[in-house]
């Protein structure tokens, strides 16, 4: 039962410590609740958990996902048509915990549905459902005080972003307010598979690493192959793979599970 395990910020920190001991990065797949159907999305996440991934970014669908590319736009649109609400997403997390999924789960959602739900209530209910933290792509730190305070009080991780355009001042600010980890966007752009990682990635990561102390860095956007995963595993504390898994899932749960398993294998 989950009561035996720590949850929240401590669980996120423990995930990075374990990955560090294994001399690799933590692999955190993104998957949205409600795609291809609500029931299948829960099955897929449960199947991914079996492959030995380290954590999850659980997507809450939004009608206007302006940081997402075509694959996640289409999948989350389908999820909305399937009746996926914030409440349904929290219930999915509860079901996954009941089925024994132990990895940290970060709730990833755009701000408006969370405001409609109620900021404080959302953090409380996410915690009660068994989630460990929160990622809001359209909420920079300046606008995130209420979430940050509530998460701090409830022991939940509150993640903020850095991008290749971030100035030294932004890097310092985000390092100060983020808890759990910093989500480092690999490129200027939206989510989606890319054949190549950006050429200036290493220099960008070095710039960030020098300024954030011990705060774990999780790289996302564009990572799509086991080879790329292996490459970034040596450079950061964690990485997120989303669009390519969602695309694989359109061919069935097994395809998504197999891809995740190959990525897990590649970084061992």
């Amino acid at each position, binding site marked *: 039962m989950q009561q035996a395990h720590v949850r929240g910020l401590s669980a996120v920190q423990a995930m990075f410590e374990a990955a560090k001991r294994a001399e690799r990065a933590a692999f955190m797949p993104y998957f949205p609740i409600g795609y291809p159907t609500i029931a299948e999305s829960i099955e897929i996440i449960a199947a991914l958990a079996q492959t030995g991934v380290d954590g999850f970014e659980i997507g809450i669908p939004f*009608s*206007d996902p302006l940081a997402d590319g075509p694959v996640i736009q289409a999948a989350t649109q389908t999820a909305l048509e399937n009746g996926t609400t914030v409440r349904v997403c929290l219930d999915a997390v509860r079901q996954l915990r009941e089925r024994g999924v132990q990895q940290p789960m970060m709730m990833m959602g755009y*701000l408006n549905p969370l405001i409609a739900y109620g900021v404080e209530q959302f953090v409380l209910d996410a915690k009660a459902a068994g989630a460990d933290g929160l990622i809001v792509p359209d909420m*920079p730190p300046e*606008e995130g005080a209420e979430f940050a305070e509530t998460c701090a009080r409830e022991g939940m991780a509150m993640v*903020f972003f850095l991008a290749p*355009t971030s100035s030294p001042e932004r890097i310092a600010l985000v390092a100060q307010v983020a808890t759990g980890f910093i989500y480092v966007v690999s490129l200027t752009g939206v989510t989606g598979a890319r054949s190549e990682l950006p050429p200036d990635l290493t220099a960008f990561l070095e710039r960030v690493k020098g300024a954030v102390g011990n705060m774990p860095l999780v790289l996302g956007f564009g990572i799509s192959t086991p080879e790329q995963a292996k490459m970034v595993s040596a450079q950061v504390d964690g990485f997120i793979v989303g669009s390519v898994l969602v695309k694989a899932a359109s061919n069935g749960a097994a395809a998504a599970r197999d891809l995740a398993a190959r990525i897990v294998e590649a970084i061992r």
Partner: protein
Amino acid sequence: MLIETNTTNVPDARGYYGDFGGRYVPETLIPALDELIAAYNEAMADAAFQNRLAHLHATYTGRPTPISYAARLSEQLGGAQIYLKREDLAHTGAHKINNALGQALLAQRMGKQRIVAETGAGQHGVASATASALLGLECIVYMGSVDMARQQPNVFRMKLLGAEVRPVESGSKTLKDAINEAIRDWVTNVRTTFYLLGSALGPHPYPMMVRDFQSVIGTEARRQIIAMAGKLPDACIACVGGGSNAIGMFHAFRNDASVELIGVEAGGCGINSHQHASRFADPSVGRMGVLHGARSFVMQTPDGQIADTHSISAGLDYASVGPEHAYLRQTERAFYTSATDEEALSALQSLAQTEGIIPALESAHAVAEAIKRAPTMPKDAVLLVNLSGRGDKDLDTVMKALKL
């Protein structure tokens, strides 16, 4: 005439108008917004920049646009005297050029050669394509495929002006989706691209910048109406989609306590039908939220998904409203009402037949409010209506709606 900046207490340094505004965008764009704020403040403090814009307005846009006294319409209604600020006579046929030229000059000053813009009715797309052609900038306009179908002439105009029009097939395929796609392009090409946002919405500094560039409307109109009517108007009336023509008119009158400021939203098939774009009028769907970078009133489902809107006018068919309007309403400085599709169509015909002016369907919403109010007011009362654009682009829609 130089544009005055920072003459109000809003927005504050964080881009807030009371509870509204802010910068709710992905982190990638924050440095671009910081750069834009700095460049904008520097440009507006530079007389050479402002003189260049004023010179273009005088020699290219056709400013000042006149005010026309609507004598026959006023007489027919039997009450207040109606005056029209003729933004329909500005180059490209709407007020949108005021902002597009200002921002395009700023883009050029910042060394950005690539412009992206969104458009609903196509008026902002045409204005952006025009300004880009004039200044030799590359221009890409995102437009929902539904809007492309209902505003074909404007699509063709943009193409003639050398812009690339990219159809948007996501979501409701209208203005909101075009903004999403323009922001995605901007996030991707942020280092080389200037996002030329067309209304007083989006993340700070856009609502302030668009207001300032549009404030030329009210600044001219205030002087003109005093000269023509011998006094300030009793009320200014303007339609409100994102709200740029309205804020441009209201801004110069904000300290004139006797002047009522009236914004007219799209009432669509009527507020009770829930098929409308009246963010302020229908608390069952219009609530505080965040869309496209700003906290404001947003039409949404109980679960916080952005609701589909309806208006016969593509330019008012938008789920949120500029944050300064939400603030003016909250502080009760401005009053917001709505006109239905039917009322707008009827107002369009009245104005055409009494004054020989075919307004844009957007502007016809403001005319509809004047038609409602004028008969209830004394004959020495003055109503100033912002006629934000001309109706040529809407002929097809109007013909279909009137079954001509």
